[in-house]
């Protein structure tokens, strides 16, 4: 079983002057997974990734890559890494930059040049390959940097906030590429605070907040265990007759009530069947009654909580 785990963190802790950035974090990334590291800003995502990459050393705990603890640099030929803040050599030509990045991973020059051309072509940057990096737009530079992380065909791709700053079209290109790499067996770990993106492409997630793990596991499992039971109800006419039922805390834990439509989180131990029976008995006319899956977004908000999410909002205001 352990052989199937590409990355394992065991009780990893990192302190910086005055505060704990990551506290006793354990997680396991299975081979071939698209693994989302989710959390508000300042949660410790980047610190975690840097520890996986062996750029910083944890104060406590162990990082195990490909079954051993030799560290990221030892396995660097098998790992591609996109740091959080973007940048390339401004005065260097696009293709030269890519060849250099591949060479730093031990790829031969000729092969690197060929692969760089292939990828530039594929991501629509072929005509820019002899231009200087500084002539490219930010989005294009980000794509170039992304190409730079995978020219050596890594088994593990670690991307820190890969979607930030990308327009919808380029974000889509990136998503497609990640999904495709995953299909060919590449394990992808990426951090984000955009839950909708994570929802679409991750099969495993780990949510962290303030340096601590909130939950982790396969997305389906996370939804089953942490999501509770949700139903969507639509009424014919008004929902007056059902009002007392929806307000009954023994049945419904939380309700998003829009008058003719409501999304309800059922209280613990309540089956949708029970609610349906009571609704029918109340005489309310139903147009729709459906069990729905909670979104990661919902789970994130519920688990991380309004209080925990606060720093992120302040961050956004400042930006």
């Amino acid at each position, binding site marked *: 079983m352990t052989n199937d785990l590409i990355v394992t963190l065991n009780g990893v802790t990192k302190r910086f002057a005055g505060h704990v950035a990551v506290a006793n974090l354990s997680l396991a990334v299975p081979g071939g997974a698209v693994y989302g590291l989710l959390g508000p800003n300042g949660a410790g995502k980047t610190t975690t990734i840097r520890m996986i990459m062996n750029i910083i050393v944890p104060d406590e705990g162990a990082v195990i890559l490909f079954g051993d603890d030799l560290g990221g640099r030892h396995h660097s030929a098998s790992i591609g890494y996109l740091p959080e803040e*973007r940048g390339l050599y*401004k005065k260097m030509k696009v293709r030269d930059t890519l060849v*250099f990045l591949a*060479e730093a991973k031990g790829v031969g020059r000729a092969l690197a040049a060929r692969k760089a051309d292939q990828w530039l072509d594929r991501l629509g940057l072929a005509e820019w390959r002899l231009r200087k990096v500084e002539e490219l737009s930010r989005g294009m530079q980000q794509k170039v940097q992304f190409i730079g992380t995978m020219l050596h065909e890594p088994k593990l791709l670690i991307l820190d906030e890969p979607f930030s700053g990308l327009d919808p079209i380029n974000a889509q290109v990136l998503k497609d590429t990640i999904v495709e790499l995953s299909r060919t067996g590449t394990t992808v770990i990426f951090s984000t605070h955009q839950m909708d993106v994570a929802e679409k492409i991750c099969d495993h997630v780990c949510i962290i907040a303030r340096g601590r793990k909130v939950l982790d596991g396969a997305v389906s499992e996370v939804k089953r265990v942490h999501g509770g039971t949700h139903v969507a109800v639509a009424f014919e006419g008004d929902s007056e007759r059902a009002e007392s039922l929806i307000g009954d805390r023994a049945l419904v834990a939380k309700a998003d009530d829009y008058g003719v439509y409501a999304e309800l989180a059922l209280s613990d131990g309540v089956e949708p069947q029970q609610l349906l029976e009571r609704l029918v008995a109340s005489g309310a006319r139903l147009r729709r009654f459906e069990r729905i899956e909670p979104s990661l977004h919902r789970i994130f908000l519920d688990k991380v909580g309004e209080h925990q999410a606060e720093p992120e909002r302040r961050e956004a205001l400042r930006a």
Partner: protein
Amino acid sequence: MRKAWAVIRREFLERVRTKWFLISTILGPVFMIALTVLPSLLAARSGRASDVVVLDEGSGALAERLATQLSRGNRFRARVVPTTAGGRAAAVDSLTAEVQARRLDGFLAVSGATLEAGIVEYRGRNVASIRDMALLEDGVRQALLVERLTRRGIDPALVQEAQARIDLRTSRVTRRGATGETGVATFALAYVVGFVLYMAIILYSVNVMRSVLEEKQTRIVEVLVSSMRPFQLMLGKVIGVGSVGLLQFGIWAAAAYAMIHYRGALFSLFGASAAAGRVQFPAVGAAMLLVSIGYFLFGYLLYSAMFAVVGASVNTDSEAQQAQLPVMMLLIASIIMFPAILNEPGGQLSVSMSLIPFSAPIIMPIRFAAAEVPARELAASFAILAATTVVVVWLSARIYRVGILMYGKRPNLRELVRWARQS
């Protein structure tokens, strides 16, 4: 080592391909040619002598003697204008007006009292010209001397004979005997060697600093140090940039050699073939070249390691400007001492500074060019420099390793020490 090689290659090619490299490589020889050819050209063409007047207020034969003495060289054309005690003020005014109108370069005023007091007044447009004033003073002194001796009854012909010009011919003697080099050529060589070394070390070390800072600012360094050891990265950078320096040196040395070898053709190209024989070129032996290159290499290693630390410990260009000052001062201290070293290449100061590893890379080659350096001193100086370089590079690598991944406040000295100690 393949990864370090990729870094060396990148640093080298990206620099050699820039316009800056092309321009400075070409400008070097152009500058050299200008430096050797221009003075002879200027000397050959600057013909106009200064027109001066000797205003004579009853000084007897002195004024006439002065005018003759001054006109003897080709710098001055002097004539005497006599005046009286009453007309002196008016004469001075009119001569001043002449000078202002640029019809005259200046005038000297002598009187009967001049012989005793030894005071001569000169007013002119060219008082800032050190050479003209030196010639003028020389002429006045000669004329006064002759006039004073003559008045005491000494035969003017005898005085003239005693005054015969002397010409001190200097020649440098080394252990292998007289070299036939003049003092001026030796001085020039020492000066040029020192200056070129200073420029090269500063230029390329600062380049290393910029390169470190660029990678830190763009966070490429994170990608690189997750693929290779920080020491490999730093060493690759230092070697890559240093190779650019050596290449440029090589080109300049070849140009200098060609220039000296074909100087006849070069001078006739500028229409100054007569000057070619007069211009002295110092003989640059293999030993001189070896010492220069050896000290450049170690000096560059020493300083580029320190500049790499500066680049790794700051976040912005303006911070780098400030942080590089202490390191820069170490180099500047050497260049400030240039004149003192050249005055006494074997003196206490010179010997000490060529042993101190931070000034040795510049001072020792200067000494070597200017005078004989005992082999024992050369060996000691080089050994100390090499040992210091090893220690400094090792220390720098330790600080660099931590610094490149640190952002935020600039570290103080205590924090740098802590970084160096971190395992």
